């Protein structure tokens, strides 16, 4: 009786799967249904076929948002992971009170309310008078309008993004580092491996699944970036994206269409178009992993 053999497995996953089906699958299905309807969440939905999708695909804002997103993730995901990995190694190399101090310090930006983090960075980025322009001024660099010059806005966001999220990923990687048996390092040292070689031959392979998590989750959440650009550009439901839409991202546009214009059907269609993009990128990640490490 194979079904009976598998029963314990199903019992263990049941609570999660049931909650998941009710509070995620059903809303997702419902959202998919409404994405084919003109729906403002109150009046009865009217079926419009692919109209919502067509309208979004032909809108310039969508093009702009996807283009911004592409550039953003190509830079922020690898850079963010690299920084987080570096921080984790750095923190891990200290022991005792100093280790705890650095760990706490690097995690500090994670606990800040997003509004506060955005406010302080808006101050730092202020043209002519802000801290960063003051420092650049020492080196004779002219004032840069970080949050209103379309050529710098995206990079200004990425810097804030890494400042905030590096600590988050660092904590996950640190937990992974602690799980690596110290005997492995000793063995590598006896084999004459230097610090760098130890990282390459012991740390990275042993951290494989954890790094895979950090990268995949980092990618998925970066593709849904919302609150940082929203707050940095001082956006509201009716006006968002910053100058020339240089910090317009899909989820921002979606929230605007949902709560600003009260077009929930259109917002849902937008969401599924983004989902398709995310699924595609994530599937690629899993494919690469499975090719490299068949399990």
């Amino acid at each position, binding site marked *: 009786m194979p079904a009976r053999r598998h029963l314990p497995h199903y019992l263990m996953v049941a609570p999660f799967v049931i909650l998941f089906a009710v509070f995620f699958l059903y809303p997702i299905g419902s959202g998919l249904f409404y994405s084919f309807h003109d729906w403002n969440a109150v009046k009865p939905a009217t079926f419009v076929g692919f109209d919502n999708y067509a309208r979004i695909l032909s809108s310039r*804002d969508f093009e702009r948002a996807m283009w911004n997103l592409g550039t953003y993730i190509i830079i922020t995901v690898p850079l963010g992971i690299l920084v987080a990995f570096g921080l984790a190694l750095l923190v891990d190399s200290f022991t005792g009170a100093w280790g705890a101090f650095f760990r706490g310090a690097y995690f500090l930006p994670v606990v800040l309310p997003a509004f506060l983090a955005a406010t302080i960075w808006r101050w730092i980025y202020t043209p002519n008078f802000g801290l960063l322009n003051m420092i650049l001024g020492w080196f004779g660099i002219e004032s840069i309008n970080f949050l209103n010059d379309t050529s710098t806005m995206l990079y200004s966001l990425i810097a804030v993004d890494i400042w905030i999220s590096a600590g988050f990923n660092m904590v996950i990687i640190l937990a992974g580092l602690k799980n690596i048996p110290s005997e492995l390092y000793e063995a590598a040292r006896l084999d004459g491996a230097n610090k760098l070689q130890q990282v390459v031959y012991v740390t990275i392979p042993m951290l494989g699944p954890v790094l895979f998590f950090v990268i995949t989750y980092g990618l998925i959440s970066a593709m849904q970036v919302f609150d940082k650009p929203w707050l940095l550009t001082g956006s509201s439901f009716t006006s968002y994206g910053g100058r020339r839409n240089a910090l317009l991202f899909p989820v921002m546009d979606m929230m605007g269409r949902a709560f600003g214009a*009260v077009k929930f059907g259109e917002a849902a269609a937008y969401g599924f178009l983004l989902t398709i993009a995310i699924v595609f990128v994530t599937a690629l990640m899993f494919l690469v992993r499975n090719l490299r490490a068949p399990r």
Partner: protein
Amino acid sequence: MKTSTRLQSGVAALALIAAGVATPALAQDVTLEYWVYSDFAQGDALALQQEFISEFIAEHPGVTINITGKGDDDLTAGQVAGAASGTLPDVFMNAAGVGAQLVSVGALSNLYDQWMAMPEEYRAQFDEDALNICMPNPGELYCLPYTGFGSLLFRNLTVLEKAGIDTTTPPATWDEWLDQMKTIKEAGFYGIPDQTLVFNSIAATYAMAGDESNWGIDWETRTTKIDPEVMTKVLQMFVDMVPVNSGTSRNDQATKDLFISNQLAYHAIGPWVDPTYRQAAENGLDYDYVLLPSVREGDHGGIKSYEIIGVAPGDNQEIAFEFAAFITEKQQMVRWAKLLSRYNANAAAMADPEVADLPLIARSVESVKYALQTHPPYFVDTVPNCYLSTIIDFASATADGEYTPEEGAKEMIDELNYCLEG
């Protein structure tokens, strides 16, 4: 004159009370949910709101009113969600600018008949312009205008004096103002924040050259009413202000800090920065507020905007309307204005001598006479995001020298019409 208005309002108040008494006693106890902007539910403002509530309850036994404060976007999100699940607050504030969305989700009941049934004395209290924003069509009234603001031009008198400018009279025209700002810049200070970065500061500048007939959206043809010639003039103003501006936006903290630390001469914004500047005045800041000049002498620029009180449809609608009518009534609006020095849409309250003497209110009353509405007309359709962002984009790009003012105005208007079509 003054006595007669006071008499009128007294009669109105009596009539209101009479109306309250005349309502048949409620069969059941009712609880009204009342949502306001977060400022209204903090500190002294909350205490006064609660006073209004207890006075209303005293006249209407069996009614309980819960007041809830929320931030700007949070009011909208909460009201849309509430409309979807049938748990709307009974009486709520929001901005006139999101009125169309609230009507589309059925969050606002049409108050027209109830309004018309109110005594004439009561209806005459309201500022006509403000009331009109709630009436998109004959026979429709979706809100009662509540509080609001008109643009003010804050002047740092220390900076002006150091630059050798006579501060006894504010600049009468745009040309005079620009000359002043040039002098200020030569003296080593900044004239004004960058006016091109925020929609409202662009609108306030537009009002210096344009008027109601060439501002806003014509929803029937889905085209912008912005006039290319006026916009050309306005874009030229932005170009002229480039050398004298601080590069910060009017909403930036840095702008306030420059003003406080005597580096910035002018700050055109709403009255909400006054508490900050008043605090700084204790440390020596010397400032006042005047009206924005215009290209025409005797006229003024600036924008105005109103917060509205809406009443949700449903079982409690009637008593909710009574409460809405009560809090927007003169007696309450006088007390509100006196406590916080904030302008509101009750013209009779604004004319009350004790209120009219408050300098911030006096200036605001003057300001709204000339100011343009931010997004007219209201309650018709949702102004798309691209409309606001297009105006900002072309204003900043022209100031940066990417377009000449003529090109910028023409392309902006083409783009706005394209945005409204889609």
